[in-house]
């Protein structure tokens, strides 16, 4: 298949830990088969920073904890035909969302002023124009843009990602066996 006929795929890690991307790499030698099926567009895997064209599939790891995450996620929605939330952070907020039951000011105070290991005599909370503003809460991806498929798991196993991608790329329904959809 020529490069032009291959499906284009983009991936990103928002408020995530890159564990889901690690899990994608965990497909081992099947990555050669994946390379037969797809061309990677914007992705930390190839370090392409900007979309170079329309993509068939976008993989979203992580939810949105700051305005930069929201911007990237909206950019993905704009450029991708199908968006897939991968991992618990994208589908429900995950570990970053542990702060969601605590008011934002308390979180900032604990992190930058009052925490037991913090040395910050001026009591300043980072507030540079270069820093994306933090959101009041961490939002799962589908609460920010429309998401077409969700693959939960922390991380979703390599088999889960592989089976779902191959089904999508070969125009088959994404019907995963019981063992492959897990929340842990």
């Amino acid at each position, binding site marked *: 298949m020529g490069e032009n006929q291959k499906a284009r795929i983009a991936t990103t890690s928002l408020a995530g830990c890159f564990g889901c991307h690690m899990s994608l790499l965990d497909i081992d030698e099947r990555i050669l088969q994946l390379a037969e099926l797809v061309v990677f567009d914007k992705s930390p895997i190839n370090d392409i920073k900007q979309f170079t064209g329309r993509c068939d599939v976008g993989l979203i790891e992580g939810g949105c904890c700051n305005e930069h995450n929201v911007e990237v996620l909206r950019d993905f929605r704009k450029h991708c035909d199908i968006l897939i*939330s991968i991992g*618990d952070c994208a*589908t*429900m*907020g*995950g*570990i970053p*969302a*542990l702060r*969601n*039951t*605590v008011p934002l000011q308390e979180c900032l105070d604990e992190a930058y002023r009052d925490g037991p290991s913090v040395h910050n005599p001026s009591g300043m909370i980072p507030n540079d124009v270069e820093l994306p503003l933090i959101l009041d*809460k961490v939002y*799962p991806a*589908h*609460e920010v843009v429309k*998401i077409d*498929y*969700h*693959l*939960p798991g*922390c991380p979703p196993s390599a088999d889960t990602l592989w089976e779902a991608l191959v089904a999508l790329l070969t125009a088959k329904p994404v019907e995963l066996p*019981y*063992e492959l*959809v*897990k*929340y*842990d």
Partner: protein
Amino acid sequence: MTPGITFTIDGKQVTAAPGQTIIEAADTAGIYIPRLCHKPGLEPFGSCRLCTVTVGGRPCSSCTQPAAEGIVVESDTDELNEHRRALLEMLFVEGNHFCMFCEKSGNCELQALAYKFGITAPSFTYQWQKHDVDASHPQILIDRNRCILCARCVRASQDLDGKSVFGFVGRGPNKRLAVNAEARLSDTNVDVTDEALDVCPVGALLRKHVGYKVPIGKRQFDHTPIGSDVEGEPAPDDCGCGGAENVCQCTQSE
């Protein structure tokens, strides 16, 4: 053989003993009706509504409704399953369920039901309500983030342990699991051997120090969907097996 009550569930003929509820008869017949608050050995409670079936077209909770001669029960229908799915999704957005670090993951009935109904992400907005953790007891933990207010522990403590350690306070979204002490679990007469600790369907009530004794991947629902034990081979008459309580009727009557 005592004369039984005969009726149908999803078109299948079922026989119930006098006094049995619909869900008990269904279990005996190998028909799994989803449930969370119901547990054999505990008084029916009828709060989670997952076991709602229609009897002659009218909805009712099968864990509280006695079986009756000739009734036509429907359980596994698209409409009821859609409702069950919505109920489960609501539980996921109301509580703070972090499966990835929950000790109960893989043995959790809420999670297993979500797997069964193919929920990959809830369609409702997360509520992120603040709930308390009570880790005061050296051997037992309450995490109210995970509590679904099924009252299994309330009933088990009262009826099986004879203690009344647990109860509910508040109403509506403020309803919460309370302990029978001024504030903390460690001030109650709860004991690590209490049966109340065995019945929690989620990870809200846990014994400490045994969290990962059975590793993730080898747990009850990791490979087998919830309800498989009910739908499996019926227990032989003389079993006395002490096996899965949903299958083996003889262990329940003790």
